[in-house]
C-alpha cells in the first residue's frame, strides 16, 4: 500500500485536433507528496492536470488514481472524481449559492449526506480555510482570496485522496495570494497529496517535495526544488528558470 503511488499516469498523450498538447507524459505521485509542475504557458501543464480527473479525455495512455483506472469505461467517473479535489484559476464558485451552499452541494448530491450532516462537514471545511464566519456570504460578497479558499473548502469537504491545483493564485491580487498559500501549506502539513501547477516559485522552494518542468507537451526534467532551481540539467529548464527569476 505504501509503495503504490496515489497518482500513476503513464504515456499520456492529448491531441486537440492537429495540436499535440501532451506527448507521452509519465507522472507518478506518492502519498503525502507535493509535486509542483512548472513550465512556460502552453506547455501542457494544465492539460496534464485535467487529464488526471478526466475533465480532459486523454487521447492515449493510462491514468490510475488511488488504484482506480480513470480511463476504464466501466469506472464510475463521478464516484472517482470525489476522491480528486480540483481548484481552478478562476475559482468557479457557484454565484447563486452561499459559501456553505457551494461546499455542501456535492456532499449532499454525490456523497449522499443529509442536509444536517453536510452542513456540519461544510462548516468544518470552511473553518479549516479560516472562513467559518463567511458561511452565509455569496461569492460576490467575498474577495478573490476568500473565494479561492471557499473553492478549496469545497474540495476538501469531500475528503479527497489527492488535490489538483490549477494556477490557484494567478487570478489574485498580490496582497491576497498569501492567504491562499497559507491554506495550501496547512493542507500540506495535514498530509494531503497535492499536485500544483503554479508560478509561485517561493512556495515551490519551501513546500514542494519535487518540481517537474514541462515544455512543449513533454516532461523535461524533475527533481527536488533546490536542484531544479539552482542546478537545472537542461538548457530549456535553465532558460525558463532564468526568465521567471529575472522578475
Amino acid at each position: 500500500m505504501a509503495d503504490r503511488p496515489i497518482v500513476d499516469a503513464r504515456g499520456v498523450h492529448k491531441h486537440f485536433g492537429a495540436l499535440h498538447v501532451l506527448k507521452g507524459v509519465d507522472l507518478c505521485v506518492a502519498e503525502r507528496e507535493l509535486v509542483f509542475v512548472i513550465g512556460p504557458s502552453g506547455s501542457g501543464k494544465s492539460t496534464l492536470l485535467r487529464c488526471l480527473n478526466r475533465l480532459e479525455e486523454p487521447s492515449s495512455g493510462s491514468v490510475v488514481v488511488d488504484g482506480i483506472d480513470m480511463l476504464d469505461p466501466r469506472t464510475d467517473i463521478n464516484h472517482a472524481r470525489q476522491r480528486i479535489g480540483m481548484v481552478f484559476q478562476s475559482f468557479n464558485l457557484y454565484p447563486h449559492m452561499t459559501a456553505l451552499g457551494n461546499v455542501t452541494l456535492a456532499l449532499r448530491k454525490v456523497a449522499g449526506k443529509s442536509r444536517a450532516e453536510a452542513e456540519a462537514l461544510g462548516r468544518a471545511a470552511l473553518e479549516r480555510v479560516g472562513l467559518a464566519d463567511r458561511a452565509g456570504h455569496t461569492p460576490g460578497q467575498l474577495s478573490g482570496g476568500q473565494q479561492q479558499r471557499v473553492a478549496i473548502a469545497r474540495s476538501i469537504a469531500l475528503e479527497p485522496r489527492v488535490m489538483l491545483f490549477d494556477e490557484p493564485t494567478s487570478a489574485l491580487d498580490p496582497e491576497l495570494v498569501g492567504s491562499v498559500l497559507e491554506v495550501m501549506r496547512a493542507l500540506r502539513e495535514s498530509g494531503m497529496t497535492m499536485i500544483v501547477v503554479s508560478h509561485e516559485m517561493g512556495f515551490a522552494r519551501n513546500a514542494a517535495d519535487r518540481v517537474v518542468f514541462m515544455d512543449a507537451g513533454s516532461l523535461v526534467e524533475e527533481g527536488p526544488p533546490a536542484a531544479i532551481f539552482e542546478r537545472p540539467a537542461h538548457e530549456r529548464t535553465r532558460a525558463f528558470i532564468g526568465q521567471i527569476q529575472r522578475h
Partner: protein
Amino acid sequence: MSRWEQFTDTFFNGRVMAKYLPDILSGVVVTIELAVLVVVTGIAAGLVLALLRSLGVRPLNWLIIGVVDLFRSLPPLVVIVLIYFGLPSAGLSPSGFVATWLSLALVQMAFSEEIFWAGITSVARGQWEAARSTGLSFGQTLMSVVLPQAVRLTIPPLTNRTIAITKGTALGTVVAVTEILGQASSAMSNSYNPSPLMLGAAAYLVLFFPVVVAARWVETKFAWKR
C-alpha cells in the same frame, strides 16, 4: 355637440359599454384560460427541448433546431389555420380553442427553447468543470448549478414572449374563439361604435399588469447577492 363630446361619444360611450361589458368579461375569461394554457405548456415544452438539446446528441439537435426555426418563422395565424383546417384531414377535429392553444403553444415553445438555450450556453464552462470535478453527474450539474443561473437570465426575454403570445390569443377569432378581441369586434359591428374595443383594450391592460409585476418579482427573487 362639441368635438370632445363627439370623441367621447364615439370611443367611450357609456351606454354601449354597459351593454357589451358582460360579453367583454366573458372574453376576458377565455383569454385568460387560453393564455395560461399556452404560456405554461409552451414554456414547459421549450425547457424540455432546451434540456434535450444540452445532451449534445447531434441528430436530435438538428431535429430540435429544425422544429424551433420552423415555428419561429411561421406567422402564428398560419399555424392556427393549418391546425384547425388541416387536422380534420388526419381524422382529428380540434375545436377553435384547442387549435389556437396548440398553435400558440408550439410558437411559445420554439421561442422559449431558444431563450433557455441561450441562458444555458451563457453559463461559464468553469461552472460545469467545477461541478463535475466534485463528482456531480451531467444531470445534477445541469439542474443544480447551470439551470438556476440560466433561468435568471431568461426571465426578461421570457416575459416579453409571454406578453406577445398572450396578445396573440386574439388570432383565435379567425377560428371563432370568443376571446377579448373577438367579443369586442363583434360588439363593435353590432353597435356601430368602437367603444367596446376600448373596453377590450382596458381589459388587456388590466390583464398584463399582474404579469409584469410577477416577472419583476421573479427577477428579484432569482437575482443573487453581490
